[in-house]
């Protein structure tokens, strides 16, 4: 079964960020049928994230979240807009992720804000970040200002379109060129003669 990981960086309960994440998730399920869904709320990970920044290794809660991301076939990520960009907590989670873990993975980007004046935040903040991480970004990002939850300025239409695009990307194996992970090296080591040859350039 397709494994979908949903990351929500909303801080309040209830949270409009989580609300958007849920609507995106439901739309993806409508498109592709039953999926295994793992929702990662970042708020409970705030302390583990700060600890990880300082110690350099993830505690058990954070490790669990990283394992879920690594195993995901696709992700839905939603952040509130703080000071014209993604939230600090959201960026901490991204910074803490193991290297290359998002390479080649389809990612649907979402953002919420109090005002429609932040509507390009996905394009100018989130898209470059996930491009750097070599994720495969769904063409339609879904931004929702507070107003959009009332007088629907075609929020539902954008959600459906983004979900359809994500569904179309699933299962398409992208040829990715990423360095071997430490785990891969443990499982299938590069023989030392080869390491010597490489060291010699």
């Amino acid at each position, binding site marked *: 079964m397709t494994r979908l990981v949903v990351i929500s960086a909303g801080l309040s309960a209830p949270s409009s960020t989580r609300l958007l994440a849920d609507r995106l998730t439901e739309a993806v399920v409508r498109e592709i049928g039953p999926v295994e869904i793992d929702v990662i709320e970042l708020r409970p990970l705030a302390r583990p994230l700060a600890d990880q920044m300082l*110690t350099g290794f993830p505690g058990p809660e954070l490790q669990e979240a990283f394992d879920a991301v690594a195993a995901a076939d696709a992700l839905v990520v939603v952040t509130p807009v703080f000071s014209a960009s993604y939230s600090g907590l959201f960026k901490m989670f991204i910074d803490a992720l193991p290297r290359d873990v998002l390479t080649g993975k389809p990612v649907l980007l979402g953002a919420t804000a109090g005002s429609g004046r932040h509507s390009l935040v996905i394009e100018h903040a989130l898209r470059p970040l996930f491009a750097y991480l070599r994720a495969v970004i769904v063409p339609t990002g879904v931004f929702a200002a507070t107003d959009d939850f009332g007088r629907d300025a075609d929020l539902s239409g954008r959600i459906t379109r983004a979900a359809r695009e994500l569904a179309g990307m699933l299962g398409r194996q992208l040829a990715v060129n990423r360095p071997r992970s430490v785990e891969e090296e443990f499982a299938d080591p590069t023989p030392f003669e080869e*390491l010597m040859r490489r060291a010699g350039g």
Partner: protein
Amino acid sequence: MQLGIFSVGDVTTDPTTGRTPTEHERIKAQVTIAKKADEIGLDVAAVGQHHNPPFVASAPTTTMAWIAAQTENILLSTSTTLITTTDPVRIAEDYGTLQHLTDGRMDLMLGRGNTGPVYPWFGKDIREGVNLAIENYALLHRLWTEEIVDWEGRFRTPLQGFTVTPQPLDGVPPFVWHGSIRTPEIAEQAAYYGDGFFHNHIFWPASHTKQMVDFYRRRFEHYGHGAANQAIVGLGGQFFIRPNSQDAVREFRPYFDNAPVYGHGPSLEDFSTQTPLTVGSPQEFLERTLGFRDYVGDYQRQLFLVDHAGLPLKTVLEQLDLLGEILPDLRAGYAEGRPADVPEAPTHASMVAARDAAVAAGAPEADVVAAAEGHEEASA
């Protein structure tokens, strides 16, 4: 089983008094601590190598020689010698001289160093860290096993007809350990040469240690140096003990909370669960430490970090006194159930004996060289 201490040589403010030791005090303290370690019967004292403040450990062999001159039994080692940014010819010369001065009472542990700017200060690039470690050690190994070396590589000027002086004491080079926390290539290197592998085993979850040690053991066997359980493994460790567990926690907490590396992050309690740090009574320390074998198997060397985070010298010496009191129990614990085929860490004497035995048995030259490098199993 070798038990000892290792230091990074940091100058850190004591958070409880606000006092920062001078470089002079810290350098002298390292000597005092090593002498104390010798006095209480520890086997190894290792010093670090750093080339930037707040560290004072820029010239390890000088410090080691000074300690060796004032001690009787303790073996001097490093934690770690920077194989990436130190010219391997200088390593061969400095540690070769030290080997003679100490009558072989030394070895060394190689590491890469993770401070970015140190690399360019020595004309190197941190992105080449693993390649530097591989090429530089290949040269060091040849300098210590071949009398006349012709050599050309990427990272230093070529050598034609070069003979390192002094040659290794008794024709047996110092034993070498390779240290790494999370880089399989370094464990692979240690396994390839049949050298020792050391995992820092502080500041990190035990799962990292287990993964690296398992891998090293497997590859040690793969390269024909002996069975996996005969590979030469060393671990770090960190403790703070007082006769009463609560006193240990109360006294160490401000140092923990403000320490470089992990300070201001997780609680002492969480960090003690997630890493091998033990803060408590001597008995708690004993049980936890002997438990390391549950995930790495029977091993050869256990070093403890005791002088860091701004702990005053007086406290460090008290810690060593407490360690000294339970040392017999610790040794007995390690000896209990240890299989007879698990070797001790090679020492100069054991390597000379192994080499002589190989020669007497008329072994081919390759096996004699292998014996001289500390792996007796090569000819088995």
